[in-house]
C-alpha cells in the first residue's frame, strides 16, 4: 500500500465538500430519527378502527381501544370517507343492536379484511377468557419494528455512501482530466484502485459506525458482529462505486447509475424482509443482492441476535467475487 498516495487522496477529499456531506448525510438522518421520538410508528402496524361519535356503547369503545387505534368521526359520511381513504386500513365499526357490525373498503390487506369480518364475533366472545390460559412471552428484541426498520434502512444507506462517494469522486476526476494525469504518474492502476477503495471504505465505515452509535443500542456481544457486517458491506459498496465509475462516462450519467443501484440496493431487502418467509427460495435468492445480507444481519442485531455468520459469509463472498470481476475487467481492458 502506498501511504503517501493515500495521504494525497485524503487531502483532496478535504476540499470536496460534497463528498464530506455524502458521508455526513446518514449521520444527520440518524440524528433526525432519534429526535423524532414523537413519530408514532406502532400505529402503522396495529389495526385502526373508525367510529361515529356516540354511535357505540362505552363498553364497545373501550374494547376497541384495547385492540387497536380508535379514531372518532362526527358523522357517518366522514367515517365512510376515512374507511375508503386508500392509504389507511381503517375499519369502520357501527352499532348493531347488542353487538357491532363493520364496514370496510374492500381494498385492504388480507389481515385487516379478516379482522373486519370477524370483529363482531371477536367482540361477542370477549368474556370467554376463563376457558383457556393465555401465555404471552415477552418480545425478543426491539419493540418497535417500524423504527428498527427505519434505522436499518439508514444504516444500509450509510454503508452505501462509500459507493456514492467513490463513484462521484472518480467521475469528477475523470471529468477534470485527472485520469490522464494519473497515467503519466508513477502509479499503477492497482494502486489507484486500492486508494480509492480505501477512501470509500473508510468513509463508509466511519459514517455507518457513527450512525450506529447514534441509533442502535448495542450490547457488548454484538459489537464484533456489527463491525464485521459494517466492514464487509462498506467494502462491497466501495467496490460498487468503482464499477459505476467505470461504466459511466460522466458525472451526470453516474448520478443516474448511482440512483438505480441505490434503489436496487435498498428496495429488495426491505421487500423481501417484509414479505417473504425466511425459509423460502426467494429469501435465499435475495442474497444475490449484497445489501440483503447486510440488511438481514442488521435486522437480526436489532432484534437482539448475535449470530451473523451466514450474512457475513455471503457479504465476504460478494466482496471477493466482485473484486475478482473488477480486476479481470481491468486486465481485459489493458490487454486490448
Amino acid at each position: 500500500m502506498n501511504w503517501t498516495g493515500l495521504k494525497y487522496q485524503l487531502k483532496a477529499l478535504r476540499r470536496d465538500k460534497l463528498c464530506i456531506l455524502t458521508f455526513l448525510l446518514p449521520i444527520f438522518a440518524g440524528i433526525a430519527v432519534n429526535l423524532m421520538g414523537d413519530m408514532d410508528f406502532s400505529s402503522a402496524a396495529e389495526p385502526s378502527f373508525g367510529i361515529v361519535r356516540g354511535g357505540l356503547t362505552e363498553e364497545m369503545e373501550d374494547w376497541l381501544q384495547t385492540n387497536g387505534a380508535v379514531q372518532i368521526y362526527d358523522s357517518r359520511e366522514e367515517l365512510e370517507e376515512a374507511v375508503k381513504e386508500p392509504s389507511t386500513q381503517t375499519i369502520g365499526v357501527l352499532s348493531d343492536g347488542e353487538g357491532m357490525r363493520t364496514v370496510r373498503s374492500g381494498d385492504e390487506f388480507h389481515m385487516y379484511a379478516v379482522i373486519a369480518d370477524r370483529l363482531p364475533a371477536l367482540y361477542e366472545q370477549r368474556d370467554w377468557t376463563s376457558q383457556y390460559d393465555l401465555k404471552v412471552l415477552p418480545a425478543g428484541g426491539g419493540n418497535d419494528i417500524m423504527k428498527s426498520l427505519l434505522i436499518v434502512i439508514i444504516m444500509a444507506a450509510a454503508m452505501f455512501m462509500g459507493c456514492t462517494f467513490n463513484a462521484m469522486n472518480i467521475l469528477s476526476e475523470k471529468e477534470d482530466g485527472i485520469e490522464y494525469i494519473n497515467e503519466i504518474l508513477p502509479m499503477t492502476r492497482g494502486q489507484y484502485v486500492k486508494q480509492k477503495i480505501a477512501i470509500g471504505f473508510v468513509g463508509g465505515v466511519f459514517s455507518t459506525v457513527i450512525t450506529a452509535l447514534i441509533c442502535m443500542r448495542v450490547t457488548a456481544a454484538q459489537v464484533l458482529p456489527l463491525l464485521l457486517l459494517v466492514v464487509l458491506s462498506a467494502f462491497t459498496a466501495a467496490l460498487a462505486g468503482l464499477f459505476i465509475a467505470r461504466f459511466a462516462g460522466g458525472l451526470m450519467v453516474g448520478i443516474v447509475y448511482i440512483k438505480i443501484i441505490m434503489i436496487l440496493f435498498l428496495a429488495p431487502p426491505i421487500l423481501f424482509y417484509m414479505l417473504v418467509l425466511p425459509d423460502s427460495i426467494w429469501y435465499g435468492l435475495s442474497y444475490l443482492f449484497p445489501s440483503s445480507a447486510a440488511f438481514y444481519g442488521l435486522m437480526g442485531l436489532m432484534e437482539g441476535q448475535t449470530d451473523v455468520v451466514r450474512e457475513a459469509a455471503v457479504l465476504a463472498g460478494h466482496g471477493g467475487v466482485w473484486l475478482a470481476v473488477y480486476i479481470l475487467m481491468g486486465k481485459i481492458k489493458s490487454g486490448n
Partner: protein
Amino acid sequence: MRGSFVALLKKDFRLCVSGGFFLLALGSLILYSCYINLVYAKLDQELFPVYRYDPGKAGGERIAGVTDVGSLNELEEACADGYSVGLHINGDSVFGGKTEIMMVSCGIERLDHIREAYARSLLFQEDKTDALGQAEIIGVNTREMKNRREMTAEVLFFELVAVGFLGVASMLFKEKQMGVIRVHAILPVSRIQFILSKLTLLLSSDLLFAAVLTVVNLGMPEGLKALPGVLLQAGILSLVMALVGFLCAELLPDFKQFSLIYLVIAVFITTPVFLSVQAGVEMEWMRFHPMYHLFTAMKNAYFQVLSAGGLYYGACAAAIILLFLAAGWGLGREMKKEG
C-alpha cells in the same frame, strides 16, 4: 418570431436526445412498470398464522386457516417469530381441559390483544370453515387495483420530482457549460422564448410519460378514466420542478454543487411525504409541507377523488408564475455575467 421559437424547440429536442434524456425515461418506464405489475400489485399482508397442537384430537377436525403441528416443541418454534399464534389443546374437549393460547409478544400491546382474540375465535368457532364476508364493503377498489393506483402515483411523483428534475438540470448545465447562454445574450431571441421552449418540451415529455405510465399500470378503461386528472397534476408538478431546476442551473456554478441540492431535495423533501402518505405516520407539521399537497393531489387524481380546492390551484398558479419570473430574472443575470 414563431420561426425562432420552433428552431429553439428543435434544438432543445436534439439536446434531449443526445443527452439520453428519452432513453432514461423509457428505461425508468420499463423498470417501474415491471415493479408495479410483478411485485407491488401482489403486495399483501397475511393474517398472523395460527398453529394448533392437539395431541388428544380433542379440538375436532381441522379448522380452516389453522395449521396442525405434531409436537409441543414444533408449536413453540412456530410461534417464536412474534407474529404467529399457537393453540395448545389439552384435555378431553375444548371446554374440558385447560387449553392454552401461546404467543411471543410482538411489542405492540393492542396487536397482541387482537391476536389473542382471533385465536380465541378460532378455538370456539362452531362451523370449522373460514366464514368471511360479514363486513359491508363500501369501497370501489380491489386490493390489487388500490396497490396499482397507489404505486403508480408514487412512482410518477418520484419520477417528476427526483428523476425529471435531475434531467432538466443536467440539460441546462450542459448548455451552460457549452456557452449557449452567452450566445443567446447576443441573439434576437427573447428570454421568455428561451425558457418557454424548454418548458414546452419538458412538459410534453412529462405528460407523455405520465400518460403511458398510467395506462400501462392501471389498465385500459381505468387508466383512461383517471388520465385527465393525472395529466393536470403531472403538468403542475412538471412545470414547478422544471422551473426550480432552471433556477438551480442559473444560480449554482456547477453540476457538482447542484447534486448537493439534489440530494437534499431527494432525501429530505420527499422522504417525509412518503412516510406520511404511505405508512400513515402522523406528523403535525406535514400540512405546511408544499410537496405534501402536490403529492396528495396526484394521489387523489389516481383514485379519482376530487379534494383539492381553489386555494390549491391558486397557490400552484402563483408558484408557477413566481418561479417563471424568477427564472427570467436569473437568466438575465446569467446573461449579463456571461456577456
